[in-house]
């Protein structure tokens, strides 16, 4: 479980996050939604410690993460996996080397054992016969799947996904969403997904936090979102005419 208590963060003199609190439960796909520039990515980067926070607290189970020094954080980071917006695969490494990298860095496994784990992770994300390819030779969807394979290589307890569907076609987006949801349940991970893809929200939204202008405006799940009276949320979720009709019929 990850708990965030009243965190605030300013960047370049502008308050990007304002007193945000939330609880992210294990075995669930927790979504942070909001329009572009609302502070979702900053929120996620604060949670994982890539950005320091100005005030508040971030708890990983019963450990106060934001107070830890570099070495202590490192131990928790070994239990984290992250899928970045642009996949963030290492350009100079092949698919196999990318997935093997965390195993090389943090385990004492033999090469054979690592290879078995790498192949298992790649098969889990439906990538086969691509071990020797470089990231530049992969499609957008494949890159995301390899990044997920790398993220789960060390069997993490926490998975973070920053806009996993950006740049993908709707069908591939669904594949990625399903993959994230399945892996979350399989490994009983606490998964936090940043997204503004409404298909994802309706498919994966077991817990949804809506962020607007750096503030948490609404919290609920995918069934509650249809009945919400939060004006800002409705403007975001039901932005087009078809979605508005859907909302009306749900009422």
């Amino acid at each position: 479980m990850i708990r965030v208590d009243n965190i605030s963060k300013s960047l370049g003199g502008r308050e990007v996050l304002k007193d945000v609190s939330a609880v992210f439960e294990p075995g669930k796909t927790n979504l942070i939604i909001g329009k572009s520039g609302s502070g979702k990515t900053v929120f996620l980067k604060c949670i994982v410690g890539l950005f320091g926070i100005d005030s508040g607290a971030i708890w990983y189970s019963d450990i106060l993460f934001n107070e830890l020094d570099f070495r202590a954080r490192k131990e928790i980071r070994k239990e984290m996996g992250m899928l970045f917006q642009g996949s963030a695969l290492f350009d100079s490494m092949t698919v196999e080397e990318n997935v093997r990298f965390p195993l090389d860095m943090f385990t004492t496994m033999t090469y054979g054992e690592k290879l078995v784990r790498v192949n298992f992770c790649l098969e889990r994300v439906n990538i086969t016969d691509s071990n020797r390819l470089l990231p530049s030779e992969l499609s957008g969807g494949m890159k995301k799947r390899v990044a997920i394979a790398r993220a789960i290589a060390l069997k993490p307890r926490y998975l973070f996904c920053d806009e996993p569907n950006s740049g993908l076609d709707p069908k591939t987006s669904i594949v990625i969403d399903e993959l994230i949801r399945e892996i979350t349940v399989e490994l009983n991970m606490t998964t936090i997904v940043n997204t503004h893809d409404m298909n994802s929200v309706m498919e994966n939204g077991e817990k949804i936090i809506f962020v607007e202008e750096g503030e948490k405006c609404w919290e609920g799940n995918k069934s509650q979102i249809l009945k919400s009276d939060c004006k800002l949320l409705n403007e975001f979720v039901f932005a087009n005419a078809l979605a508005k009709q859907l909302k009306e019929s749900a009422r």
Partner: protein
Amino acid sequence: MTFRFLSGFGAYWMLLGKVFSRPEKPAIYYRQTMKELVSLGLRSIGIVTIISFFMGAVITLQTAYNTENPIYPTYLIGLGARDSIILEFSSTIVALILAGKVGSNIASEIGTMRVTEQIDALELMGVNSASYIILPKVVATLIFNPFLTLISIITGIVGGWIVGTTAGVITSPDYIYGIQYAFIPYYITYSLIKTLFFAFIITTVSSLQGYIVEGGSLEVGRASTKAVVYSSVFILLVNVILTQLLLS
């Protein structure tokens, strides 16, 4: 201006602190260093050889034209070319060229890693990204650049000999006698010491420029340019200090 200089200087030392912390897995760092030896060292041999050959040739021709006087023995052309190559050109000029080739390569590589979130990915895994990316580059250039300097010295002197004798400004026996005459071995040591300092400046200054990039491809390009400019300025500054310290 002063604030920017001081904050940049502070960022440089903080980055060095991160770079020289204990490596997580020495075996992986060793593998990375081997890769960098190829990428930053072996792949620079070509340009260093070509430039040094023509540099040696031009130094020999210019020395010949500037000492066209019956009272000067012609072997002094070889001596002058040798000392110019060893003392200054093979260390400083080659370092400036490498600042352009290797420095911009390092800054753009690390800058691209920054803007594509590869450095964030390393940090998130708990890897000391500065040490993992930069330390192998520093070690590789510190190991290989002295060899580049030696290659440059040899190629420069050979270039001077071939072009000098072909152009008819000096005979082969005079040139060979000149490059052996009053040879001071310490000059080689001096040149290699300078090379080590310059190698360190090129890799660390360029790495910093790449590491602190924010934005996109435009900023990566700017960082690459800054890496070359700052490395070159620091090389010239340190050259003056080292020359005073080592030759006075």
